[in-house]
């Protein structure tokens, strides 16, 4: 006699369905990461407000300290400017095609082929901060683009999946990751930078050369 358990097992829809694909898992992962980033951005204005208050307080303290110091020490003043870093994002290919320019990827023996058009430059960067790499191997730079940059990135990357994206600093390709999902508002550029290098790049990115 057939039991309820037998009938349930017989009717199990997973019996006849193909195994889940990696693509579906990757899609969910991308959606989840984007949602978490969105959540972060929505809660950030509050954090920015606090940071602004903190910066103001530190600036006031610095001015007071300078005013006090100038009475005690009359040494020459030093002005430090962040050195501009020319940052560009371009689409790239792994195989040569007419119109593409070959470029070595720094720190590897890879050569990629750059498209002539630049997707974003320093002008489209709203914010850049140093973040540790996900595998703890060094530091990278998290970049947030302005509206125009985000739109350029979205348009360019959506039709370039599974092909390389070239990130150039001062004309050198510092990394050429393969695009797994479209990018728009922000991206984390992680290379094998030391913290000091990453800070130099993050600061330099914010300077419009």
């Amino acid at each position: 006699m057939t039991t309820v358990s037998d009938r349930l097992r017989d009717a199990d829809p997973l019996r006849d369905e193909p195994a889940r694909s990696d693509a579906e898992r990757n899609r969910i992962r991308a959606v989840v990461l984007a949602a978490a980033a969105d959540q972060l951005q929505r809660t950030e204005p509050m954090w920015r407000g606090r940071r602004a208050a903190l910066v103001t307080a530190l600036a006031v303290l610095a001015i007071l300290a300078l005013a006090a110091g100038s009475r005690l020490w009359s040494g020459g003043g030093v002005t430090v400017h962040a050195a501009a870093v020319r940052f560009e994002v371009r689409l790239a290919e792994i195989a040569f095609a007419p119109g593409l320019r070959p470029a070595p990827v720094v720190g590897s023996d890879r050569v990629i082929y750059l498209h002539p058009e630049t997707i974003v430059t320093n002008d489209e960067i709203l914010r850049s901060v140093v973040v540790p790499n996900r595998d703890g191997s060094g530091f990278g730079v998290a970049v947030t683009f302005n509206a125009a940059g985000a739109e350029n990135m979205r348009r360019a990357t959506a039709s370039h999946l599974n092909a390389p994206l070239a990130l150039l600093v001062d004309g050198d390709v510092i990394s050429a990751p393969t695009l797994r999902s479209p990018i728009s508002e922000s991206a984390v550029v992680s290379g094998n930078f030391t913290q000091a290098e990453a800070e130099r790049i993050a600061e330099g990115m914010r300077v419009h050369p």
Partner: protein
Amino acid sequence: MADVMPAMLPTDTADRLSTLVDRHYDRLYRLARRLAPGPDEARDLVQETFLKAARSVASVPLDPTAAEAWLVRVLVNIRRDAWRKAEVRSRYDETVRRADSVACDQESALIARATVWRALDTLAPRRRAVVVMRELEGLPIASIATLLGISAVTVRWHLAVGRRELARFLESHGGRHDHC
């Protein structure tokens, strides 16, 4: 090593969420597929579960077993909310679908399977989850209790009532394919 992520996130948060998806996606999909009416609904259910995790990463336990239980409970709760909202509509759909299948479907085996699945649809999601975990996933009562955050006694009660409700439904719908 080079990488570009689609969004700016602290790396520990991105790692946590990626690990959660990688570790629990298959398990959640299997459960969702057996709780939801079809594969599309199951995918939506899994996605919504992980989105809840993304919106409150800090509340997801670090321990993988506890994280699995957290995700399973969220998934069952989401399904329960959807089930409650759709209950009235599904009663109507049920009537229509039953009439259609009697008139059109000549495959008695398929009808029998569809009948079993309709029987499961009548169970409230938590009870259905208990039945699915026990009958299809073969989990021990204690594990089901841990996953759903309820006592073993409650699991046994859901299981007994669920089996009885299923048997009653199947008994009253069992001979339907003979009419085709």
